[in-house]
Structures are given as structure tokens and as C-alpha cells.
């Protein structure tokens, strides 16, 4: 029997790269995502390349109250689910969110509320099994609020704290929680964004994440140098920081 992994947000750029890595390591996969057709195409591709079992299911991150039940059923579907990955994320439009609350709410819901719903149910399922690894993709944007993307950043910052607490709670249940903070990654979400530098390939990021799982890391920046960039940014005194245009 193969080990199993479930990926929420499987059709995102990093989700795709992660699925490929996990499949190469012999995991059977449960792919959950928004685009039905794309999920099926991915499943076929993963089966042909890696000869693993793949199941797909569609879900809607904009309806968080439906998510716990969805997660419960999905995890039950895999024979031995040992990894759960959360690759949801939506940058939203900062300027729109500054004047229209519905816009801000969508960003907050997709990046935080939906994640909290999925994490709750996943955590409980893994507690029951007394094992498992939960990996959630956050963002370096959650480390410090900046005027250019603080709505997205606040949701990711909230997620960081949620994950910290969850890690604390699950440590005694032999369930491990990894917070992944990606810097600039060359994804569909960031393609064409201005001001990007030292952009990393999703495949390289996926490799680092798999390594973080194997080494049971708690919080990882990908690529690694973002740890030091964010440290420098966090050290700027607030009095000065508020006057910067970041």
C-alpha cells in the first residue's frame, strides 16, 4: 500500500509542482481544486508519468462552511493519508480592497477563513491517526504589513499565527505542522507583477518543501534567503517603516 497525500489547491502553480514531486516519491494523491477539467488532466498526467493512484474532487474556497465536511470525506478516501498540503492563495486587488469591503472580504476568506476550515478538519483527522504532516503555504507578505498588499498580508499573517497555535496543539499528538513562507515564485498568480526579483521556479520550491517535510522543519522560507531579507525588513523601526513606500 502506498502512502497517500492530499493537496488542497492542487491546480495552483506550486500545487502542481508539489504533486509531481510527491508522485515521483510514490505517494498516491488526492487532488482538490477549483477547476474540474484541469484536475482531471493533472490526474491523468500524474498517472502516466508516475503510475500512482490519483483521485480528484472539486471544491470552492469561497464557501468555507462546506469545507470541513469536504475535508473529512476526502481524507477518508485515501487509504493512508500521511501528508496534507494547503496551497490556496489569492492575491486579490489591494486598491479595490481599500474602498470596497466585498473585495477585501474575498481576499481574507480565501487566504485565511478557508484555510482555517480545512486545517481544523485535517488536524482532527490526523489526531485520530496519531500521525501525519500538515504543510500550509503562507507568504512572506504575512511577516510585516505593507501598504501595497496588507489585506493579503494580514490574512497570511493570521494564517501564520493559526499554524503556530496548531503546531503547539498537535505536537503532543505526533502530528507535525510546517509553515512555508514563499518569497517571489514564478507562478500564474505573480506572472507580470511589477517589482519582482530573484524569482524562483515552482519546481525548485517544491523540492525545498519536500526536504522540509523530510527534515521535520517548523517554519521554512523558500527560497531560503528570504529568511534574511524578511529579518532585515522586520528589524526596521516602525517609526521609519511607516514612511517608506513598500
Amino acid at each position, binding site marked *: 500500500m502506498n502512502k497517500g497525500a492530499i493537496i488542497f489547491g492542487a491546480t495552483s502553480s506550486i500545487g502542481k509542482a508539489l504533486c509531481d514531486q510527491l508522485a515521483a516519491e510514490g505517494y498516491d494523491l488526492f487532488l482538490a481544486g477549483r477547476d474540474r477539467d*484541469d484536475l482531471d*488532466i493533472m490526474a*491523468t*498526467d500524474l498517472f502516466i*508519468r508516475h503510475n500512482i493512484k490519483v483521485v480528484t474532487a472539486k471544491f470552492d474556497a469561497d464557501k468555507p462552511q462546506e469545507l470541513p465536511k469536504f475535508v473529512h470525506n476526502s481524507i477518508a478516501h485515501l487509504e493512508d493519508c500521511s501528508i496534507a498540503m494547503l496551497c490556496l492563495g489569492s492575491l486579490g486587488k489591494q486598491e479595490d480592497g481599500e474602498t470596497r469591503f466585498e473585495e477585501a472580504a474575498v481576499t481574507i476568506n480565501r487566504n485565511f477563513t478557508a484555510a482555517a476550515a480545512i486545517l481544523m478538519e485535517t488536524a482532527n483527522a490526523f489526531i485520530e491517526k496519531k500521525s501525519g504532516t500538515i504543510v500550509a503555504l503562507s507568504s512572506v507578505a504575512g511577516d510585516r504589513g505593507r501598504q501595497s498588499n496588507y489585506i493579503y498580508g494580514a490574512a497570511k499573517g493570521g494564517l501564520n499565527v493559526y499554524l503556530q497555535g496548531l503546531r503547539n496543539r498537535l505536537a503532543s499528538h505526533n502530528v507535525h505542522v510546517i509553515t512555508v513562507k514563499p518569497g517571489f515564485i514564478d507562478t500564474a498568480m505573480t*506572472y*507580470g507583477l511589477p517589482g519582482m526579483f530573484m524569482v524562483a521556479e515552482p519546481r525548485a520550491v517544491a523540492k525545498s518543501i519536500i526536504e522540509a517535510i523530510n527534515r521535520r522543519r517548523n517554519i521554512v522560507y523558500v527560497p531560503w534567503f528570504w529568511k534574511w531579507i524578511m529579518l532585515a525588513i522586520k528589524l526596521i523601526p516602525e517609526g521609519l517603516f511607516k514612511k517608506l513606500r513598500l
Partner: protein
Amino acid sequence: MPGCKKEKITGWGRFPVSLCETYRPEKISDLTELSSQNGAVTARGSGRSYGDAALCSESALIKFERLNRFRSFDVETGILTTEAGTTLQEILQFCVPGGWFLPVTPGTRYCTVGGCFACDVHGKNHHTDGSFSHHVHQIELLTADNNLITCSREENSDIFCATAGGMGLTGLILSVTLQLVPIETAFIVQHSQRVSGLDHSMEILKKTENENNCSVAWIDCLAKGKDLGRGIVYLGNSAKRMDLSPGQARNPLFLPRPKYYTIPFSCPGWLLNRASIRAFNSLYYKRHPEGEQVKKIIDYNKFYYPLDTLHHWNRMYGRKGFVQYQCVFPDETSKDGLREILECTSAAGAGSFLGVLKRFGALGDGMLSFPMPGFTLALDFAVTKKILPFLDQLDKVVMKWGGRVYLAKDARLSAETFRAMHPNVEEWLAIKKQVDPNNHFTSALGRRLGLS
């Protein structure tokens, strides 16, 4: 809708340069949305065509690099269906360990299957196996009215033939169903031989065409007089198990990872000049033993893709880039045509490392495809002020002897010349008008040649 990036785009030759609005969809739904919501679109694979086939400053440029999923594979028959952005490299990594190989491959494995079909590329085995499209069972095409249609020799056959070699101007190729061929080993038995001149090369290529699946000749294009067209002929056949050394035979379908080198930045323009190229060509020629054929068992990467180990080799030609000129002459006029091309090149001193001579076999189904029975020659030229008028002069030679020029390499041919060279342009335009009357699918090349 997927994000848009404005960036400077070139083909592999790095000439011309064009500021393009680019998109990079990762889902089929994004692709159909992009195609339906934009005025005009241009498809781009890996950007391995040399000139301006996959760029356009007045359209939405759609990069296919992340649409690279395998759709189906039949282990019994070796029929693979895969998305257009899949590179040959990915296919090889997947199929070689299972004992399958590409039926036709160009000199790089970094190009995409969509690009291979759109350019109807050929390999060293054209004289026995035809061009790429010959081994394609069917394609999925997204048309101007945003319908997804299947094209094959049975269904929508006219569109299939117009799309094979149609340079992406009939629609967006979404997937390609390709017939792979069985192999016993990942190695090639190669015979090479030094040849003293053009006639000799052609004679060997012609004489051996029935015994050898692959053949190609490297030509020293700076040699003059009696040495004109001297070079080295390489002949190859897929190796059987019994051909291998005990070490190779232990794992006949497995190759160690090749070593890669990278040219880190554009070399200064003066690096490749008459003297340095002449010295290189002489050295390369004389390094090969005289007389007898030399037999070697080499892996497929070394045989088919020698330049792929040198990443960014296009930077050797300097910042202004280079143009590759590839033409073909029919059998009857090949000797005269090639001689005149080589004489012009040699006289102008406009030589290149890469002079490649190949034999072509029968015509394929692609309406605008390049190959025809005869001989083809490819030459690289660094872009200088003098080179473009010089290439116009070569066009005249090609027309005079009834030949034509390869669009996948082209960056400068005129619409009139192309029409005069290719007999099927009118027929192709009739189908283009029928499937894409408003020229939704376009490219800088298409516009330059009056095709879109």
C-alpha cells in the same frame, strides 16, 4: 484572466527583437479565455524557432510552456497524446526507459511538440521516415470561433494539412497525438567519414540512404576551390543490444545525466570572425582521421543533440544575434544550387561554424512544409549590416534552382519571394481564409510573409 507581462522577445537567433504583451496560461480554461478575449494572438512554445515565428508586437503572445501534460499513453502501441507545450526532452525522459523513442527529432530536445508540428520539423532521418507531422495521428486545435476541433488525416484533413508546417497561423494547437517508435537501446551506431568536397558528401549521403536511418554532413563553408564543400559525414542507426559494449549492455536504456555547460553572457561581436571560424573549421575537419570510416557507439544525446549540452550557445554570435539560413533544392538541381550557395558564402567570407547538409526524402502532408526530395543546407550568419542584402542574394540563387527556404529558421524573407518559392501558398491561404478570416492567429512572420 491570467497576468500579462510586457517583455522583449526574440527567437533562438536573438534577431529580431520585439516588445510583446505575453501571457502564460496554466489551464485550458485560461487559454480559451485568453484566445476569446484578445484581438489577435500568437502562440509560442520554447522559442526555439530562430526568427520571428513566435513573436508579434501587435498581438497577445501566449506562452505554452506550462501546458505540458501527458493526456494518454498506450504502452502497447507507443501512441502518446500530450499537450502542445510539452518539450521533446520531457517525452524522452519518460519514454526511453520504456523502450520508445521519438519518430523524428530536430537538433534540439528543448523544443515543444506544438512547435514541432507547426514547423513540421525534420531530423537526420528524413530520407527514410519523413518529417514530424508524418508521425502525428491527430491534433486538437482551438479555432478562431473558440471551438476545440480534432484534426487528422480523416477528420478535418484540410485543416490538419494546413496546420502541419502552418507556423501556428490556423489556430492554437492544444495537443498532439504522436506515434513513438520502439528502440532496443538508447545508443546509436555511428559511422563517420571525412569527405573532400561537396560532390563527395552528396554521393555518400545518396549512396547510403537505404542502409542508414540517419545521415548528416557537417560542411566547412569557408573552404574554397577544390576544397569547396569539404566536411565530415555522419551516418547512424539505432543500436541493437548486441552492438553494445558489456558496460553499456548492462542497462541499455539508461543514460547517465549529461554534463551541461553554459555560455554565461553575450560574447563580443568580433569573437566569431573570418579568421577564428576558419581556424575552427580547419581544426574540426583535420581532427577527423582521413580515409576509412570511423565506427563509434554513442548515446542518443551525443548523436542527436550535441549542442544541447551547451546552454545559450546562441550567445556566441554576440548581442546582435544571428540568422540561420536553411534552404532545400530538388534532386535534379541540388548539385548546382548547393555549389552556387557555397561559392557565394565562401566568396563573401560570411561563414559560420554550422554548415549542415542533409538528404530529404518524399514529400509529406504539410501544405507549407519545408522538406522536398533533394538536399538541404543550413548556414549560420551573425547579424551585421552586410548580411541581410547578402541573404537576399542567396534567395535569388534558391529561386533560380527551384528551391525554398525554411520558415522555422527565417527572420527576413519577403512575401513575394516566399510566394515565388512555395507552390502551395494560394491553396494554404484559401484554408486560412476559411478557418480564420479575420487573422485572429498571427505572428511577426505571418504578417511579414502575408500569411496572416
